[in-house]
C-alpha cells in the first residue's frame, strides 16, 4: 500500500481538529466542569457556591439508598449483559444454520433494533401494565400476581426483560456477521474431526468469535449502564418511588429534577471512575485471552 505523505506537519492536525473539537467540547469540557462542581455546594441559580471539599462524595457514598441503587445497577448490568449476549449468540448460531428463508428470519430479528429505547420502554410498559398488560395476564395464569410499579422485584424483572429484548438484535447482527466471516475450511476440518456440534462450537467456533464477543461485552456493559435510561424512565413513569433505578437515573433525578448540582456531579464523577476501572479491567484480564486473527 502506498504511504500517504503530508506536505506540512500541521496538516494532519488540521484534519483531526473537527473530531478533537467535538471530543473536547462534548466530553472533556463537561467532565472537567462536573469534577469541579462536585466539590461545591451550589444553589441552583448559581448565586452562591461554597467549597465543601469531599462532602458531596462522602454524603453520596454513605447514603444507604445510593448503595442499594449501586447494588441494583451491578446486578442489572450483569443480567442484561449476560442475557442479551447469550440470546443474541444463540439466535445468530441458529439463523446461521438456516438455509431456506434465512433473509426473512434475519430481517425480523434485526428490525427490533430500529426501535428507539423510549419506544421500547413504552411497548414494554404496555406489556407489563397492571390493568391491560398481556404479560401480567399470563403471569396471573401461573399464579404470579405481577405488580409492576409497586413491587420492586416485578418492576426489576420487567425492566430487565425489556432492556434485554431491546439489545438482542444488536448483538445478533454482530455475532451473525462474525459467524459468516469464519473461514469455511476451518469449519469443515472441525466437522471431520468431531461429530458433536456443541463441542465444535465451544472448542473451535466460539474462540474464533472471541474478538466479536469481547467488543460486544464492552458495548453491552455500557448499554446496560447508560443507554437503558430511556427504558427505565418510561417504565417508572417519571416516578421512581420504590422501584429499582440505575445510577445514571439517580444522577438525572438529583441533578435535573432535584436541582442539586453538587451532589449529582459527585455521582457522575463516581460513575465515570466506575466505567474507567471496568474498561481497564476488561482490557487487562479478558483481552489478553483473545487472539485476533
Amino acid at each position: 500500500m502506498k504511504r500517504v505523505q503530508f506536505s506540512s506537519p500541521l496538516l494532519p492536525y488540521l484534519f483531526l481538529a473537527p473530531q478533537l473539537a467535538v471530543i473536547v467540547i462534548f466530553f472533556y469540557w463537561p467532565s472537567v466542569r462536573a469534577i469541579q462542581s462536585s466539590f461545591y455546594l451550589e444553589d441552583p441559580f448559581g448565586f452562591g457556591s461554597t467549597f465543601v471539599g469531599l462532602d458531596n462524595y462522602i454524603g453520596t457514598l454513605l447514603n444507604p439508598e445510593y448503595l442499594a441503587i449501586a447494588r441494583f445497577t451491578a446486578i442489572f448490568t450483569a443480567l442484561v449483559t449476560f442475557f442479551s449476549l447469550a440470546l443474541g449468540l444463540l439466535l445468530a448460531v441458529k439463523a446461521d444454520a438456516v438455509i431456506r428463508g434465512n433473509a426473512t428470519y434475519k430481517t425480523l430479528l434485526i428490525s427490533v433494533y430500529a426501535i428507539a429505547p423510549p419506544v421500547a420502554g413504552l411497548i414494554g410498559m404496555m406489556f407489563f401494565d397492571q390493568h391491560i398488560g398481556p404479560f401480567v395476564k399470563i403471569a396471573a395464569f401461573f399464579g404470579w400476581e405481577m405488580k409492576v410499579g409497586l413491587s420492586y422485584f416485578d418492576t426489576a424483572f420487567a425492566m430487565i426483560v425489556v432492556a434485554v429484548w431491546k439489545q438482542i438484535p444488536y448483538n445478533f447482527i454482530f455475532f451473525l456477521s462474525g459467524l459468516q466471516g469464519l473461514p469455511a475450511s476451518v469449519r469443515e476440518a472441525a466437522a471431520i474431526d468431531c461429530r458433536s456440534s456443541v463441542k465444535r462450537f465451544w472448542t473451535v467456533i466460539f474462540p474464533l468469535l472471541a474478538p466479536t464477543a469481547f467488543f460486544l461485552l464492552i458495548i453491552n456493559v455500557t448499554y446496560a449502564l447508560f443507554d437503558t435510561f430511556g427504558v427505565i424512565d418510561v417504565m417508572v413513569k417519571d416516578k421512581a418511588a420504590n422501584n429499582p433505578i440505575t445510577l445514571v437515573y439517580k444522577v438525572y433525578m438529583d441533578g435535573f429534577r432535584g436541582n442539586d448540582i453538587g451532589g449529582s456531579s459527585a455521582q457522575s464523577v463516581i460513575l465515570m471512575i466506575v466505567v474507567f476501572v471496568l474498561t481497564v479491567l476488561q482490557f487487562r484480564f479478558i483481552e489478553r485471552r483473545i487472539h485476533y486473527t
Partner: protein
Amino acid sequence: MIKQFSLAAVSIALTATSSLAATNISWWHGMAGRNGEVINEVAQKFNASQTACALTPVSKGTYEEALASGIAAFRSGEQPNILQVFDAGAATIINAKGAVVPAEDLIKEAGYEFDRNSFIEGVRYFYADSDGKFVGMPFNSSAPIMYINDEALKKAGVAAPKTWEEFEAAAPKLKEAGFIPLVQSQLTWQFTENFFSRNNIQFATNNNGYDSVADTQLKVTDPNLVMMFDKLKSWADQGYFAYYGAGWNDNQKPFEENKVALWIGSSGSFGGLQKTAQMPFSADFLPYWGSISGAGTNSFIGGAALFAMAGKPAEENKCVADFFQFLTSPEIQKFYHQATGYVAITTAAYELTKSEGYYDKTPVAEVGIKQLMLPAGEWSKGYRLGFYPQIREIMEREYGRIFSGETSVKDAFDTIEREGNELLARFAKTAG
C-alpha cells in the same frame, strides 16, 4: 397540502413582522397536550388585545424540565421573561434571591393597583413571601378533591363521606356492593401535604418553612399523619383501599372503569374524566378527620405559578406586568378555568363564572374552587421547603414500601423525616 403549509408559513411570517415594532417577551412553561394549546390561545388573546407587547409561549416539556431549563438559561444569561414553576419547586426559585422580580413589585412599578384580597383565600399565600407579598403570580391552580361514583354509592346505599370516619363506616358496604371503596392518585400531594392543610396541622418548623431556610425541619412523624397512613395500610389489607404505585393514571384507571367508588384526584381532572369515565360521577371535598380538632380547613393550592425572571430591561418587565394584569382579568380567568378545569384564582372571576350559570351545568367544576375558598387555618396557607421535589421522591419511595410490605408506617416516616431534614439542611447551606 404544501400550498396550505406555505400559506400558513407566510401568514406566520407576516404576523411576526407586524409585531416587530412591539416588545417581545417570552414565556417558558411545562404544559403539554390540550393544556399547552390553551396557553397558546391565552397568548394569542393577549397579543390581539394590544400592540405594545408580543408574547411567545414555549413548551419546555414537563414542570421539572421547565424549571431545569429555566435554571440553565438563567445561569447563562438567556432566561425567558416568564417562567412557569410548579408548587414543589416554589422554594427553589423563591429562595434564589435575585433570580426573580416579585410579581407584586413588577405590577406596582408598571403603575397598576395590586389587591391581594382580590385573590381567593387558598391562592393568596402559597407563592408569597412571609410578609404576604406575591413573589410568583398564581397561574394554573388546582385542589385535590374526591370524585364519587354515583352508581356505586347508590348500590351500596351510602352517602358520600365528608370525613374519614364516615368513609370507614361506609367502606364495608361499598366493598360488599362489589366496588373498591377508595383509590387515590398522588399520596404526596393528596395525603401528605394536603393532609396537613385540610386538618390544619403544622407541616414543618419555621412556620412551614416560610420564615427562614435555616433549621427548617419536617414534622412528618406527627402522630396524626402516622395514623392516616396506618389507616390507609389497614384499609388496603381489608380491601377498602387499593394502591397501584406512584403513577397517577394507574390509579385513576380503575375508577374510570367503574370498579371504584371513590377516587381522590385533582380538580383539574374532570374535563378528561368526562370523556373517559364509564359511569356518572360527581365530586366533593377531600375528606378530613372529624376527630382532629380544627380540621376541615382549605387545602393548599396545587399546580404552578408564573415568575418574572430578573435581569430584563424595564420595557420588557412592563410587558410582563401588562400580561399578568391581562391574565388575572375575570374574562381570561373564566376562559382558562373553563378550557382547562383549573380553578379561577380571583373572586371576581369566580363570581362571573357563577353568574353565567356554568356551575349549574357542571357542578363538579365548582368543587375545587369552593374547597380553596374554605376558611384558612394557621397551617393551611402553604409550605416553603427547599429541595422539595427530592423530598417528594423520598416520600414516594417510602410509601411504595409501605404498601408493598417492605417497611412499617412508623419506620417509613422516620426515614422520610431523617432524609428530608438532611436535604433541608443542605438546601439551607446553598441558600445561606
